[in-house]
């Protein structure tokens, strides 16, 4: 299945995955960007990114980052602004 992902840091890549979940999409995106979207120690989503499925933050979903995706789902991964200086 092809999953179209909207990001504010890497355009809108299309990712092809069998039986996709949010986790698989993020892992594929990490491979494409060569940047870890998961924190290496605890495998949680890096704090600089927010992940939404159909407008709902992944943490609010019953299966969280392991939520299975279906055709037409809208996945959005956003880098948050680093505001310190």
């Amino acid at each position, binding site marked *: 299945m092809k999953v179209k992902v909207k990001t504010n*840091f890497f*355009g809108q890549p299309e990712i092809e995955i069998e039986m996709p979940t949010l986790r698989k999409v993020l892992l594929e995106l990490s491979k494409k960007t060569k*940047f870890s979207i998961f924190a290496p120690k605890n495998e949680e989503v890096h704090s*600089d990114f927010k992940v939404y499925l159909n407008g709902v933050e992944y943490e609010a979903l019953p299966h969280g980052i392991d939520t299975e995706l279906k055709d037409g789902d809208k996945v959005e991964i956003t880098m948050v*602004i680093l*505001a310190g200086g």
Partner: protein
Amino acid sequence: MLSRKEFDRYNRQIIFPDFDERGQKKLKNSHVLIAGVGGLGSLSSTYLTRAGIGHITIVDNDYVELSDLNRQILYQDENIGERKVDSAHKRLLGMNPHVEITPIFEKIQKENVLNIVKGAQVVVDGLDNFETRFILNSICVKKNIPFIYGGIDGLNGAITTIIPGKTPCLACLFRNTPIEKKDFLPVFGFVPGFIASLQSMETIKLLANIGIPLAGKLLLFDGKTGEFLLSNVNRDKDCTVCGEE
């Protein structure tokens, strides 16, 4: 014209092939605004002063505190309690007497931002909050002034060079992202130091027209893993700040 002393002072820059004397003269005739002289602005003002930018305006409405000294390298213990722009002004002039430094002790707001950016050819982000960044982003888009965004949080840093009308502005990239407000961010001095060094390089590249700036590219750095993400970013046609009307 460069004086004999200026030739000697900037010799290691002038021998840079694509830069040479013409680049140095361009810097001398330039005016840069550094918005905020904290962790980022301490470093960028230092490098840009030493590099010979002719006129630098620094703006900040804060006072030096003890907890600033781990990263804000313009200041020392004896400056605690002083206005940052006053301490910075004195320190920067001591680094290079050929540079004119204009200190402005004001908080950047919608009402005064037009006056603050007046005459600047490049605006360098040294801010510590997103509200002021968006005010500055808007005026830079409106006045067609390049704006070099830099931001840090913990061991992470980000930078992009915004060229109004050509690259995405800060609002294209971040206006829909949630902002987590924190009273104090964790920070080691080398993280803003690293990002501010890149901002200084971007400024000089733009002013002297050398190299390829990070225009339309977002560089994200994760100090925990040493990973960099450099990606092309696009304008948002529906952007409320720079979108097509």
